[in-house]
């Protein structure tokens, strides 16, 4: 770990949801193991991406960090004074995340009102400046969300996220609801705003291409656990965990021609209600050995890439070459 200043530290975080039968006195039917023993740190000024498929716990993690959910165990250490003011979120669906009854100006000003920043006139000025910063017109403040396209709505959501001058922004699948021809506009905007406002990003996505583009570091999650973490180049050019390898292999690529009869990954992720014993990936893993069924693997530094690259797989960590 280098000496970069930390923004946030998470130790051994656990979040389980009790599933109840319907009704007032419904009995607990099981437990969803959404997050299991998650430890990570986020450095000031970096873009940390979390990748993984549906149900891996990436959105739950975002919600625990923003205190929308309380963790069951573990610690989140915010190394910043006023975390509520300093964290903002950008959500996936800009059609759902903007209140249709408010004007764009009111939507964007809301964080300022909540945190009691500025007078009314100052807020208006701030809204106008922020609108321009995200590539919109000052006059758009008087219009309503339905008058804008998906890409413009996502710009409005970004304006709302940055107006109160936060340090840290969590973007949960900010591109996936947008048309393909709009995605690069928003990706560029996120990157330029980060530079200008000296932000730190937690970028949550299932799209590996955009993660490879924007992230400095990447965490790969599977069934509520971190299976690999490292610098973006380490993860994409030299993935260590069999799941990361499978994920990168399965990502569709352009221009390589039609799929050859592939070695596509087997099966599907197990239910979070009853995660497999040992390494939760073992039922799908081509490199599975007997010990994987019993032993929960620990994140350990990969010998190939030095100590910033952590892989939770004893099988691949053993030097075989």
């Amino acid at each position, binding site marked *: 770990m280098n000496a970069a200043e930390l923004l946030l530290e998470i130790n051994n975080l656990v979040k389980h949801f009790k599933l109840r039968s319907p009704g007032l006195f419904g009995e607990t039917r099981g437990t969803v193991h959404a997050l299991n023993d998650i430890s990570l740190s986020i450095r000031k000024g970096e873009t940390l991406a979390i990748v993984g*498929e*549906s149900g891996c716990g990436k959105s739950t993690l975002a919600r625990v960090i923003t205190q929308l959910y309380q963790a069951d165990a573990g610690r989140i250490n915010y190394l910043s004074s006023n975390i509520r003011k300093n964290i903002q979120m950008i959500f996936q669906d800009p059609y759902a995340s903007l209140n249709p009854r408010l004007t764009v100006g009111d939507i964007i000003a809301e964080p300022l009102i909540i945190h009691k920043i500025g007078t009314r006139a100052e807020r208006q000025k701030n809204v106008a400046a922020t609108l321009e910063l995200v590539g919109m017109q000052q006059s758009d403040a008087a219009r309503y969300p339905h008058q804008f*396209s*998906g*890409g*413009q709505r996502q710009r409005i959501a970004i304006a709302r996220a940055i107006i109160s001058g936060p340090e840290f922004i969590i973007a949960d699948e900010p591109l996936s609801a947008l*048309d*393909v*021809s*709009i*995605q*690069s*506009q928003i*990706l*560029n905007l996120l*990157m*330029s705003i980060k530079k200008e406002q000296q932000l730190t990003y937690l970028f949550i996505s*299932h799209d*590996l*291409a*955009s993660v*490879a*583009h*924007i992230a400095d570091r990447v965490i790969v999650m599977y069934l509520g656990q971190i299976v690999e973490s490292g610098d*973006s180049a380490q993860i*994409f050019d030299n993935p260590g965990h069999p799941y990361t390898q*499978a*994920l990168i*292999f*399965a*990502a*569709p*690529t*352009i*221009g*390589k*021609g*039609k*799929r050859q*009869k*592939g070695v*596509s*990954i087997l099966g*599907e*992720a197990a239910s979070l209600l009853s995660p497999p014993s040992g390494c939760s990936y073992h039922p799908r893993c081509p490199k599975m050995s007997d010990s994987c069924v019993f032993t929960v693997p620990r994140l350990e530094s990969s010998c190939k890439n030095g100590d910033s690259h952590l892989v939770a797989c004893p099988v691949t960590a053993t030097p075989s070459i």
Partner: protein
Amino acid sequence: MTSIPLLEVKDLGISFPLDDGQFQAVSDFSFSLAAGNTLGLVGESGSGKSLTALSLLRLIPEPGTISKGEIYFKGENILTLPEDQMRAIRGRKISMIFQEPMTALNPVLTIGRQIAEALLIHSEISPAGAHQKAVELLDRVGIPDATARALDYPHNISGGMRQRAVIAMALICEPEILIADEATTALDTTVQAQILDLLIDLQAEYNMAILFISHNLGVVSEIADEVMVMYGGRLMESALASQIFNAPQHPYTKGLLSTLPRPELRGQNLPTIEGSVPSRFDQFDGCPFRSRCTEAGDECRWEIPIYNISVDQRAACIKLKRQI
């Protein structure tokens, strides 16, 4: 070649009545599809790709109509067929898999029953025989323990398994054309790869033609032999997959491919296509991409000629005239 193509669409137009006139959802769209071939149809939301697919089944939602053109299935114009003859084609000769497997399946019927249904409608088979075929097909599409799963309800099985069941449903009558509309979009990446492999296998086995519709260029690149790119209800470009992805000609295709993140540009500004996708409220004459096109000129307001760039490649851009 003089043989009749399996499917030939000529000058297709689909329109919806508005208070003040017509909304032209699809215009002047022509293409053909050969047995055993996979034709990719790429486009963003509102480009008309799903409506084009539905028109092949004559299932355009009300109040939309097929206002123009002909659709020939094995030489016969299906737009002039009486409804009872169309029913013999729909689901049997031409079938479709939809995007969301949870909504495509009936929650109160067992998987096996739903798969067998088309067979019971379209052939003389006994219920027991149809069930047996449904179980065989479930096994073929990679559902383990198919006999037991056939008796399950959709909510009992995972998303990937549901999509396999939906594929089995579309295949039970051994269709000649399979339409896959965003068939892998709702799935996880690793499961998506499995479903693409399955479709490629099944295509070889049944020698069916596939019309594969997606907004995801990567997925289309992995499965299509030929690709059509739509924008604003019109064909922008069509070509062999290798040509579309390696030597695109139309400004829209070129622009779209250039905006995708790629390793050489990591961390840098990506090229963009300014503006946004036209909505149904935007009425325009001429080329629908004109307002976002860096190469557009005055002539694009009036004309959208389709040029044959080579035997396999067509593009709808007047700017390409000079180059040919």
